[in-house]
């Protein structure tokens, strides 16, 4: 297998305080990887770093297959202005930005792709609805449709199933499985361990430091989970400079 992402001794954080501390490893093409860990473990920070939204404090992220901007990234609780008068179709069409940019047309072929994506997430008939009228589940379905349109080789999802009912969650999980079947690499931050065991072959367990990374069954062992809980200590305002070798 070939790597799509190489993390080397990576430290990410804010104001010099590390949230993700000295982690390393490779994500392989076609991986379906769950990132697990307690709150404050640095899961969202790690995704932000991979998406290129946060510069490493140390170490490096090598994106082998694609540029940061070609990675599809769905942040946790996306900051969308839902009062803005725009409809579902136009929102999903935004996924064409990399190809269309400021001036490129959205022609018949692209329109069909947008409608196909809206159909695939089960939002048929809602394409003309203003985004302000959507429910939470419908909004998340719409954002999944936009990711489909983005057609990225690497997809990052930050707690994509939070606050969704089981039916919506199941539908979105099957879309994730379809992405993997298409050969895409999907990395998702998740809290539902049962779901991770059922669907995700690989897991990265994080507690600011890397606890374990590998086959889900091995990683999510009781002892690893216990260790992860203990390792998330409080942020130290007076922390010394980190002397660990780079």
């Amino acid at each position, binding site marked *: 297998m070939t790597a799509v992402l190489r993390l080397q001794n990576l430290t990410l954080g804010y104001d010099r305080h590390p949230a993700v501390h000295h982690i390393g490893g490779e994500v392989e093409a076609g991986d379906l990887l769950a990132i697990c860990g307690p709150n404050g473990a640095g899961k969202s920070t790690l995704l932000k770093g991979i998406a290129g939204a946060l510069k490493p404090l140390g170490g490096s992220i090598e994106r082998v297959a694609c540029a940061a901007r070609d990675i599809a*990234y769905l942040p946790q609780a996306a900051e969308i202005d839902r009062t803005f008068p725009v409809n579902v179709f136009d929102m999903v069409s935004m996924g064409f*930005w990399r190809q269309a940019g400021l001036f490129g047309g959205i022609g018949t072929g692209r329109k069909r792709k947008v409608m196909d994506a809206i159909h695939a997430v089960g939002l048929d008939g809602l394409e003309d609805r203003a985004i302000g009228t959507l429910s939470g589940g419908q909004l998340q379905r719409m954002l999944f449709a936009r990711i489909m349109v983005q057609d990225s080789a690497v997809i990052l999802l930050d707690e994509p199933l939070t606050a969704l009912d089981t039916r919506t969650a199941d539908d979105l999980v099957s879309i994730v499985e379809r992405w993997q079947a298409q050969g895409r690499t999907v990395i998702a931050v998740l809290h539902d361990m049962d779901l991770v065991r059922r669907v995700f072959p690989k897991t990265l367990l994080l507690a600011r430091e890397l606890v374990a990374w590998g086959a889900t069954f091995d990683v999510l062992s009781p002892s690893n989970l216990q260790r992860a809980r203990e390792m998330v200590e409080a942020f130290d305002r007076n922390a010394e400079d980190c002397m660990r070798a780079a």
Partner: protein
Amino acid sequence: MFDLFISPFQEFEFMRRALVGGMALALSGAPVGVFLVLRRMSLTGDAMAHAILPGAALGYLFAGLSLGAMTAGGFAAGLLVAVASGAVARATSLREDASLAAFYLVSLALGVTIVSLKGTSIDLLHVLFGNVLALDDATLILLASIASLTMLGLAALYRSLVIETVDPNFLASVSRAGGPTQIAFLILVVMNLVAGFQALGTLLAVGLMMLPAASARLWANDVPGMIAVGAGVGAASVYVGLVASFASGAPSGPVIILVAGGFYAVSVIFGRAGGLARQMRPRQHLEA
């Protein structure tokens, strides 16, 4: 009817000029105002309108009531305040609205002081309230150029401006266009304020931007619709305002804004997209 609505423009050149200049302002101000409303920057526009005053006043100090000097000064001052208040907000613990308020208050005081020291109170009135009935050729050309440039600029920015407003994180994840889009939009705002300053003065320059745009939000549920309604309301305000001020002898700039305010009041009550009447007397709910 004819005497009231047509003949003032037929008989007097200054009325025709006022109409053309006002239309240019209304057509370019409306789309800019629509984005200000959608980006929740309605009051930012107002603050920046005050901020152009000291620049225009400095131009006036050195060159008198000269179009070029006052325009260039106003434009520079507006941009300076926009950039400086943004920088203060980023570098200190002050939020953007507080630092903008500080900058525009100082600007306004400075501008009024400069004009009062040098000029007459007539000049001060001119600067504060403009004079839409005294637009000369050069000013008309300036207004028309700014209107044309604004439309071209907004057409070019449209897609990134919409995405930057609805979902800034998404735009940042796929492109570097976010920052330049914000800056280009600010430049368009300042340009339109400088144009409005010539006709309506520093205090009312935002009027033809914000009132039509706020009205439009109450009628339309999509951006192109808002822009169309806003431009229509703006143009109608200019025409009706000029007619009313001609008939009554009231000053034309404030009357134009009052008419726009009237359209706004009607929209608040009867607007189809969230107006009061719709909420007070909801129609029977649907089956699904």
